[in-house]
């Protein structure tokens, strides 16, 4: 259950960015999570919903995309290899290196300008 710690960091990061847009609510947050992080989307959403209550992010839609594992093959370059830890290139059979996919990224946020300006 490491999702809560990541959720807290996402909330902090989003609220920090939103400070530049006073009076706005955050209506959507788009995340990208590396497969290796083993973050469970439902669990992360649940944590985010719970801790966002009372903040500008309350009720925001959380979109989460998984960045799948990939293999760096010396011949074929980066080859998609979701769910695979086999260090052999699925295309040419040469040995390669499993690419990290270990980051959680806040890709974008959508803000609702409540006071109707702009």
């Amino acid at each position: 259950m490491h999702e809560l710690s990541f959720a807290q960091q996402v909330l902090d990061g989003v609220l920090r960015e939103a400070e530049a847009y006073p009076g706005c609510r955050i209506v959507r947050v788009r995340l990208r999570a590396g497969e290796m992080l083993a973050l469970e989307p439902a669990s992360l959403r649940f944590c985010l919903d719970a801790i966002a209550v009372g903040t500008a992010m309350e009720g925001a839609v959380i979109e989460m995309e998984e960045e799948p594992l990939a293999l760096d093959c010396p011949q074929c370059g980066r080859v998609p290899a979701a769910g695979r830890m086999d260090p052999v290139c699925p295309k040419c059979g040469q040995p390669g290196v499993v690419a990290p996919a270990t980051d959680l990224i806040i890709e974008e946020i959508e803000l609702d300008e409540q006071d109707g300006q702009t």
Partner: protein
Amino acid sequence: MSKTVKLEQKVKAKGHEIAEELRALFREKGIYVVNFIGSPGAGKTALLEALAPHVKGRAAAIEGDLATDEDARRLEQRGLRAYQINTVGACHLDAAMVRDALKEFPLDDVEFLFIENVGNLVCPASFELGEDIKVAIVSVTEGDDKPAKYPKAMKVSSALVVTKVDLLPHLDCDVERMKRDAAATVPGMPTFTTSARTGEGLDGFLGWLEDMARAR
């Protein structure tokens, strides 16, 4: 009106800043810190018990468990200074827990600090404790598929220690597969095959740790 802001901002696990403070503190004191991660029952404490006679007087250990101070007491019986953290419900140690432990467990004249994380191959991989390296501990009884099934734990680790190899004659466990899968995430990842019972492989692992500490 709504507005979309592109961020591409990387999120660090909680406690990242505290971990950096701890890392600086350990560097200043000249302590090489090793974070052991592995499943419950992988043999993390047994490995430390077996290493204890070799590092007694120049190493200390911080033990993480949900409950009991059994592990710290086991290590103290072997002459290793040890401090027990009880996480109560948490499935991993975080940097704040280590910082709090250090208030009651001053480390002045040690070269090594071993931090034994809560038994879990998933969550501890995401948290920095200010350590120099993580070492993944996997026993042969868990099955040879574990490095492949827990790639994050391998990716963040600097070495894989395979434990309980004295049991290999009784098991269908392919240690070569474990090595291969670990090396798939970290090319050239050193793997040590050890037995806390027979002492096999301990010299090699300890020698490697000494080299790593010197090379820091």
